[in-house]
């Protein structure tokens, strides 16, 4: 039971009989362990616990949202939210119908981080930190590890009552090398849902990061310009998320007539080999769950099929307003925020080409791997590679300093001209939108090749 103070009958009584079109209550409780190193020093180790809740009310198309850490007087909070909604609402609520759900979803644990003593976790991270520092030329490190066990209770005025749990295991390792005032960094972000296992085997990764940071000191900057680019599955995943994923979120579209014209179903966005899917129903990934934060069952949604836009991601409100089916993509970072349309696990489906064939025809290009980050404004986006090499005469050549790539939705997706026959998922990091960050999602792809990408030198 989330929050020992919350009682089912009390919650149901509080939301029943309100003068609103819809009311929901969400309570969540998260226990987090966190360990951070910087250089030789352990910077912090701590346990945090957050507990809080919110009420969201819809009336005549207007929303009221109240969040709190103090759960008592729930009925008063509900009334407050209903009153706020009434102050806003001047239209008719359009909220897609879904069947109410009563369910308790148990943890599907693989390797439970809660059973690993803090001393053992620390010893493991000590070793990775030492491994990075033992590489000649490395001057510092930064390691962050956290595991967060979250339990969420959702109840709605339509009769839904759902309890769900998850554990996010997230880490980031980073090595810094420094020489004559020049500094270079190599890093890697990893994550898993309900599974500690990957944390046990990061020794090799740690050593590679240290070595690459040192190598980067001697590496050149790319000559800025336009190149054919090959992305590894991890960076291609971030590319797919930034370049297209966010634009498929209907809250960017549903109130915007011009955007509706741009994102009209049936429009061609890519070559016929391009297929992009999002879905929390794909099991075992960081964006996976059983029900979204409006109690809608998780699904799998085709976004692009054979290069054509065929679907988009919805909350109940955006689906209702656009007259489309719900997709189970309404998600909230935690109790402080209302659910908004978000991605879950977003990926480009695999193609048929081997890596060697992907690069064989490239006389001068860039092979970019891994990520530092990515950002989109819908039409234009950037994403930065954690690792990059020149491709010369069909072969991977010299290491480059980190590069930034930029693209335009309407040309870059169309310029994906080959898809690899491999597949991998990026589960590190998190997604940020409307101040809600980092939301656990994953993204994946095979290796992909894109023509004419603008590459910046840093």
């Amino acid at each position: 039971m989330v929050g020992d103070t919350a009682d089912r009958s009390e919650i149901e009584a509080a939301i029943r009989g309100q003068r609103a079109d819809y009311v929901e209550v969400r309570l969540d409780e998260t226990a987090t362990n966190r360990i951070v190193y910087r250089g030789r020093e352990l910077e912090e180790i701590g346990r945090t616990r957050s507990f809080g809740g919110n009420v969201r009310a819809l009336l005549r198309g207007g929303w009221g949202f109240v969040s709190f850490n103090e759960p008592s007087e729930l009925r008063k909070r509900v009334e407050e939210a209903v009153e706020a909604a009434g102050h806003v609402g001047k239209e008719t609520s359009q909220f897609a119908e879904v069947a109410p759900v009563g369910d308790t979803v148990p943890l599907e644990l693989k390797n439970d981080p809660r059973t690993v003593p803090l001393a053992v976790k620390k010893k493991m991270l000590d070793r990775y930190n030492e491994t990075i520092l033992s590489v000649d030329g490395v001057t510092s490190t930064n390691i962050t590890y956290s595991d967060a066990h979250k339990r969420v209770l959702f109840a709605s005025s339509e009769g839904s009552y759902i309890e769900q749990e998850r554990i996010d295991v997230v880490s980031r390792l980073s090595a810094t090398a420094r020489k004559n005032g020049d500094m270079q960094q190599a890093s890697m972000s990893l994550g898993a849902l309900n599974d500690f296992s990957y944390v046990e085997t990061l020794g090799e990764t740690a050593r590679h990061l240290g070595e690459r940071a040192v190598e980067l000191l001697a590496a050149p900057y790319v000559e800025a310009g336009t190149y054919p680019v090959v992305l590894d599955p991890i960076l291609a995943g971030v590319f797919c998320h930034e370049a297209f994923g966010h634009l498929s979120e209907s809250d960017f579209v549903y109130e915007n007539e011009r955007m509706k014209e741009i994102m009209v179903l049936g429009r061609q966005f890519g070559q016929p080999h391009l297929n992009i899917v999002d879905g929390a129903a794909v099991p075992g990934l960081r964006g996976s769950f059983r029900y979204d934060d409006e109690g809608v069952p998780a699904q799998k949604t085709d976004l692009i099929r054979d290069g054509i836009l065929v679907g988009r991601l919805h909350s109940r409100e955006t689906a209702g307003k656009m007259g489309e089916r719900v997709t189970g993509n309404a998600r909230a970072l935690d109790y402080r925020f209302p659910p908004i349309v978000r991605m879950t696990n977003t990926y480009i489906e695999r193609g048929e080409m081997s890596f060697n064939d992907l690069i064989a025809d490239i006389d001068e290009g860039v092979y970019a791997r891994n990520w530092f980050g990515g950002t989109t404004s819908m039409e234009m986006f950037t994403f930065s590679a954690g690792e990059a090499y020149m491709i010369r005469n069909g072969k991977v050549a010299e290491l480059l300093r980190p590069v930034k790539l930029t693209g335009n939705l309407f040309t870059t997706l169309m310029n994906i001209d080959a898809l690899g026959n491999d597949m991998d998922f990026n589960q590190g990091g998190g997604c940020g939108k409307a101040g809600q960050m980092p939301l656990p999602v994953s993204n994946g792809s095979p290796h992909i090749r894109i023509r004419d990408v603008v590459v910046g030198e840093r």
Partner: protein
Amino acid sequence: MGALTSAYATWWWVSVDCRNRVGTGTHEQGGVLTDPEPILQAAQRLGAQRAEAFIVQSEETPVRFEANRLKEINARQTSGVALRVIVNGRIGFASSTKPGDVSELVEAALETAPFGPEAHLDFPRDGPAADVDVYDPDVEVLPVDEMIEVGQSLIDAVRAVEPELLCDAYVRRGDSTVTIANTNGGMFTYRGTGYSAWLNGTLIRGTDMLFVGDGDASCRAQLDLKAVEASVVSQLENSRRTTEARTAELPVVFTPLGIASALIGPLTIAFSGRMVHQGQSPLVGCLGKAMYDARLSLWDDATLPYRPGSRPFDDEGVGSRRNPLIEKGIVRSFLYDLQTAGLAKAESTGSAERSMAAQPSISTTSLVIDEGEMSFKEMVGRVKEGLVVEELMGAGQGNVMGGDFSGNVLLGYKIEGGEITGRVKDTMVAGNVHEALKRLVAIGSESRWVGGSVRTPPLFFESLTVSAK
């Protein structure tokens, strides 16, 4: 900071540090988690030699507009406590937002202490705090209807100039009380208010998307809405035409919005005492040395009245001050919290900032770049071919620690023959902030606040790498 669009979404690695500190505290919770005394006593009783409680209570009311009309009214109440304990010379840490959680909080902190970092700090005793105004009772009583009116009038004003603009807007008021208490007898508490408004506009023509936006923030119930309007209108006017940039080394003028979006992050991280101590700052060994253009001065100042970054003392109870970072091009000081100061044999500069999620870290408060001599108009007039940058997208993602910045020009204009000739797109600008600030043509004569925490004039760079299709 300074994102021009609400349609702005990122991929990033920030793991758990979700700072949540805007807003206030009038909700009493039976003193269970909001009174530091029982927490400190329990910590000492259960084995801590020293302890410190950090308590935040806040209330925030944001109203949100979507697609030109009011969409949502929110009310956020938050309260939480973070506890640091020192046991046998090591620091343990725990936090909770769960009422009635005192014993679990204390036990969790004590449990982590044996594995924690060695303590190189002592908690401050009671002392005089700086006299800094951060509270305005008028904010508390601002009617929601007035906030709605502010948002709607901003939207109406810019749409009068460009009727097709689709606007989102936020107007927020908040009130928060911060309390820090420690077993050395230190007890520090203050109450602060915040009021802010932000407008984002999107203009779509065919597949071309233009994002404009600006806002203002203060601790007082007074915002300069006319300036916000004027800024957005000028962005619209400079973007009437779209033109093309070319790949070259070109002179670039960064506006205050552009500076906040791209340069402040990579510049200020180098002044973190933690980064310097760990050899992760390019300014290691540069204290007292002339590293930048001799006209450049940069301050971190938590004592400015009614600025959202201001406070009488930092989140460890150390009194606020005005820290010179760069004086006439010379590196003057780095920023420290207590633990880092102890490690580096330095003194805390009152730069500790914290959330419920983590131990204190070093942060800037309000950053101020001193004004120079040249007007923005004159800067543009001097450029034969170059760019004006209002916002670089994705600039903070790369080798930021080394000072690199690089981003897509989300909003920026081309200068040809001394005049702005239109907006550029699909263009990147890149450089290294420490290098670029050595080669300034001029510092602007007109300063403004961006996002409440950076005050800067425009900066005119001799040459940066521009790449375009």
